[in-house]
């Protein structure tokens, strides 16, 4: 079953809240993981691994560097679903 953009955003927000305590309301498409949400590289990797499991996608290490905003991650996940 393919996830919609909204479902991925909602799921990602949950994962971000779990890892960092940031309120899910803060997690919007235009937010930068580092500059706006202050997520460090280790937390980012934890979120990535949990997102892989949750959405059944693979996000290679090299690709993680390109995910600057929440929107980048949502787009990557929705367009790489099995």
């Amino acid at each position, binding site marked *: 079953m393919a996830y919609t953009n909204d479902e991925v955003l909602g799921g990602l927000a949950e994962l971000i809240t779990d890892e960092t305590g940031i309120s899910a309301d803060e997690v919007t498409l235009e937010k930068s993981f580092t500059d706006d949400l202050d997520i*460090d*590289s*280790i937390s*980012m*990797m*934890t979120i*990535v*691994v949990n997102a892989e499991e949750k959405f059944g996608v693979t996000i290679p*290490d090299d690709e*993680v560097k390109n995910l600057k905003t929440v929107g980048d991650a949502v787009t990557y996940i929705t367009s790489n679903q099995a």
Partner: protein
Amino acid sequence: MTATLNQPTGPAHTRIYAYGAARGENYVPNDDLVGPIDSSDEWIRQRTGIITRVRADHDTTAVDLATDAAREAVERSGVDPSLIDAVIVATISNPKQSPSVAAIVADRIGTTPAAAYDVNAACAGFSYGVAQADALIRSGVATYAVVVGAEKLSDIVDPTDRSISFLLGDGAGAAVVGPSDTPGIGPTVWGSDGSKADVVGMNYSLTEFRDGEAPWPTLRQEGPAVFRWAVWEMAKVARQALEVSGIEASDLAAFIPHQANMRIIDEFAKQLKLPDTVMIGRDIETTGNTSAASIPLATHRLLEEHPELSGGLALQIGFGAGLVFSAQVVVLP
């Protein structure tokens, strides 16, 4: 008719008799390192859990640290040095490639003419050494062995590097391994993945440095990639080590992972769902990451602070540059 060779066999079981430890003489706080990396004490603590790391004096070498740790382990073991016939030193930081650290250490601690050699398996080196000592003794090739992890990493750090240098410390940890009436060292789960050789290791070669093509070689890592591998891939290895040992996480008295980064240790423990009864090695907070030395240093400290752990089971797992990894369950002396 061809003569038949003698082929040795050894005792059925081995165990660790005692540990020894040596740390660099100086505790270096985060504030001493933040200038060149434009950082802060808080930034380092948050990302690594490190408050201080130990670094050795200019004239103290990895050989010196290894000798001190090995000597303590041998003294505590009660084994006569003349009976020790194998000395294995895991190290990646001795600036003199030859002769081996092990041969010098073997002589300094009175075990000559023991077989002696170094192992290059980075942060998995101590666990590799324990695997070898166990195999050498059980096959009858050696009677008693000393395994040492020894590093003077401060010789191969770049103060301006934000990837790994500020984590690193200097030290050595050692263990004496010998025959046992009961199983004391479980099966080793180990391996490598050279396809990821670039994610952690030296940034340049000595010949590039000699020819003026590169600065003095130092350690570098791709932190996030290493973090993912160190937690989620290594959690699989750790579970496998428990499984082949025939035990459950709840049977453990201690979990002693390579002291790479407190965030790795915390997430690792979370992934393994360790019960609260399992004591976790967290020597990194004040010692820093000492590569091959980190597991025996953390074990030594746990045993000093919690002597009641003696006789309990500890899962140790090392992982690092290569990439290489190694895990086994041991009975704590």
